[in-house]
């Protein structure tokens, strides 16, 4: 009844890419164990799995960035061994990296053609490249002036440039590594349309994502990886996001968000009035109550992060801030920390942790004064604090002298949370608490956040993931182009209400 496993006939049914028994070890650690995968032309094949499941390694092998330890790869039935990414590209396999790898000081066209410039003799042909870049971006449904420098583009626009750059070479299989991780819903939708177009042209797409509804929406086939093994490959039509999550984690995750006791009306701890952050946010006013979890929703660039940073003294801002009724003004972060406000940046690696330093140094960095005895930083106290933090926040680390950069994303986030909790803040602002974090760790982070609120601390969560805000928050404020445009709470807490406020477009109006 199922298809027989004899070699496929020659008349076009040979799969574009077929790998068998693919394994990969780094030293003694085996990260991929006997993966069999078949990718067919004109299909979107999603690969899902928790962080560390081996998705990225698999993609790096398929795109020639890594060599497998074992296993065979066939293209059109012919066995191949990639000598490197360029070789894979020559065979039509391109990888769209998760990180944006563009030179910010070069123009869009210069980036698109970087390393393969069109030249007339010795002189580069800017005109041809600008034309080519404009056309390539148009084909993806975008409209970006190819002569602006990339540094001035939004994240979504940069991503489009990166995709245009990848698709410039003749391609048969495009691999997307978590392309929507930093995109807003609207931008995500645009990207999914691009992917659908690519598929329609007969190209195969491998699509890696944490966002399961998206996978359900776009994919023809879904492959689930767990701990380096292939759990299953199924038709996407047959699996719901809930099933996908269960397959990824290997257990039920129906309850991602913690139950919270309904908080009665409690006193206001923070009052922000008419706060403006020049260039980013204007006339923002809101209140935060004790023990409350307040969400901030909006598109990327709506000014949420900047408003929070302005309030915390991280950037210049005007307006009134009252803590427990008393007006305060913070000219630097140090003051706001002392007043009991902790801000956890969305940019964990760039602004949160010193990746090249060990866990202990990171943990105590913001609260070092507490560890000083006789003008010296007491390392014994620091070690004790680390032991406590590791236990309290379940930071999973083999050795305690690891560097922060060696931790997984989820454990880095736990470390950052532990670091800021060393300040014993009464108000905690968490920006994108679970970006790039696997579902198991997400659940833990949510539990921590709920726990902190239950202790009587007040929490602001800034997030682009609406289910997260809805599952976690008591109220959600929505920002659009620098203004707080509305509040959703109670029965109105749903994605539709938020999207309408965030975009300013009524559902159905756009169609």
């Amino acid at each position, binding site marked *: 009844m199922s298809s027989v496993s004899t070699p496929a006939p020659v008349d076009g049914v040979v799969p574009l890419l077929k790998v068998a028994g693919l394994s990969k070890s780094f030293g003694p650690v085996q990260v991929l164990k006997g993966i069999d995968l078949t990718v067919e032309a004109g299909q979107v094949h999603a690969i899902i799995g928790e962080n560390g499941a081996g998705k990225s390694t698999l993609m790096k092998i398929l795109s020639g960035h890594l060599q497998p330890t074992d296993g065979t790869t066939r293209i059109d039935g012919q066995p191949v061994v990639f000598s490197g990414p360029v070789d894979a590209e020559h065979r039509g396999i391109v990888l769209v990296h998760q990180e944006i790898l563009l030179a910010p000081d070069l123009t869009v066209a210069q980036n698109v053609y970087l390393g393969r410039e069109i030249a007339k003799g010795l002189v580069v042909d800017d005109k041809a490249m600008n034309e080519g870049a404009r056309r390539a971006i148009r084909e993806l449904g975008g409209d970006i002036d190819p002569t602006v420098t990339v540094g001035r583009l939004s994240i979504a626009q940069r991503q489009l440039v990166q995709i245009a750059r990848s698709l410039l070479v003749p391609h048969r299989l495009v691999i997307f590594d978590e392309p929507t991780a930093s995109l807003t819903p609207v931008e995500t939708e645009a990207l999914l349309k691009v992917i659908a177009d690519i598929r329609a042209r007969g190209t195969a797409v491998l699509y890696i994502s944490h966002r399961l509804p998206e996978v359900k929406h776009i994919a023809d086939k879904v492959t689930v990886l767990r701990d380096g093994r292939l759990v299953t490959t199924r038709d996407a039509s047959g699996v719901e996001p809930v099933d996908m999550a269960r397959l990824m984690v290997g257990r039920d995750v129906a309850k991602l968000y913690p139950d919270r006791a309904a908080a009665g009306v409690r006193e206001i701890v923070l009052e922000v009035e008419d706060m403006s952050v020049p260039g980013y946010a204007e006339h923002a006013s809101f209140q935060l109550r004790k023990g409350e979890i307040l969400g901030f929703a909006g598109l990327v660039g709506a000014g949420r992060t900047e408003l929070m940073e302005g309030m915390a003294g*991280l950037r210049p801002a005007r307006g009134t801030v009252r803590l427990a009724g008393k007006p305060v003004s913070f000219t*630097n*972060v140090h003051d706001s*920390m002392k007043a009991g406000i902790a*801000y956890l940046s969305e940019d964990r690696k760039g602004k949160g942790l010193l*990746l*090249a330093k060990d866990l202990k140094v990171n943990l105590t*960095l913001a609260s070092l004064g507490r560890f000083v005895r006789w*003008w*010296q930083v007491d390392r014994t106290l620091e070690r004790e604090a680390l032991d406590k933090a590791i236990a309290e926040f379940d930071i999973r680390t083999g050795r305690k002298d690891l560097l922060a950069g060696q931790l997984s994303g989820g454990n880095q986030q736990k470390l950052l949370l532990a670091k800021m909790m060393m300040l014993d803040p009464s108000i905690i602002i968490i920006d994108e608490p679970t970006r790039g974090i696997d579902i198991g760790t997400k659940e833990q982070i949510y539990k921590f956040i709920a726990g902190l609120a239950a202790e009587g601390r007040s929490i602001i969560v800034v997030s682009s993931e609406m289910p997260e805000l809805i599952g976690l928050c008591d109220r959600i404020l929505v920002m659009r182009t620098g203004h707080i445009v509305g509040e959703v709470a109670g029965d109105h807490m749903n994605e539709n209400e938020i999207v309408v406020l965030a975009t300013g477009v009524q559902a159905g109006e756009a169609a």
Partner: protein
Amino acid sequence: MTETAAATAKARRSWKDVDLRAVAPFVALALLLVLGAFANPNFISVDNLLNVLTRSAFIAIIAVGATFVISAGGLDLSVGSMVAFVASLTILFMNSGAISDPTMTIVAAAVLAIAIGAACGLANGLITTVGRIEPFIATLGTMGIYRGLTTWLSQGGAITLRNPEVQSLYRPIYFGEIFGVPFPIYVIVITAAIGAFVLYRTRYGRHVVAVGSNEDVAHYSGIPVSRVRTLTYVIQGLCVAVACLIYIPRLGSTSATTGLMWELQAITAVVVGGTALRGGVGRIWGTVCGAFILEIVGNIMLLSNFVSEYLLGAIQGAIIIIAMLVQRSLVRKS
């Protein structure tokens, strides 16, 4: 027996954990000593070695300050000019006869030198932090300013300590010995010890390394980044002043060429000592070791016949490149 086993296990683990980059400069120093002994038996004599260490004092002390600046992600090209400027003003003050008592003259001169050094460093720091100018450019500018002011003060000639009473009283600061060890060597050790304590043990030292490692993370952690940075330049200025105070009695004179190219030697000592030029890691004792290496190489060349001492600059240049290559290869292995 169990105790021995535990001890060996511990020793083995700690041996494996040893950071090769931190040890490399000391290994290089040991190899150089062996090489020097083969090149000329006189090299390894106590007198010669003490002499070499004494002469390395200026660069070693300045480089301790440079370790702070570089660890915090900065750079100070003005230290050589600063030596000339601070020393010149100090000598001019001692010559002015403002204080008649020779002992008090020297004490006041020392206080003045330290104040001027700190002020020069503060200027460098404020220009880079408040003025937001790249440290390379800012200190390139002050390098010209301090050197130019020195040339102007000396009117193109030399500034010489004239008071013979002060001269004879001040002389032992460079030429004197305690327990047979020249005084400048004590100054190196004390300066480095204080530097190491501040950098490794105090909250400020931790902040310096954090700022050099990632300025944004430091800022978001509530660390006053500009203040921390500015202070590293002040520390550099203080170290320059200390170096001046033992430099003056050596020749009793300064000119427009005093301290020429010392900034490059100081930076070389820091980098050879294992401090990363991009910031985030500082090694005080490595720096001192680096300064010794530079001086010892010169000494070996002087004592041996197979390399012309005129090639000293070329050899020192080669050392910095080799040191970087060795560091890079060690990083890759670990």
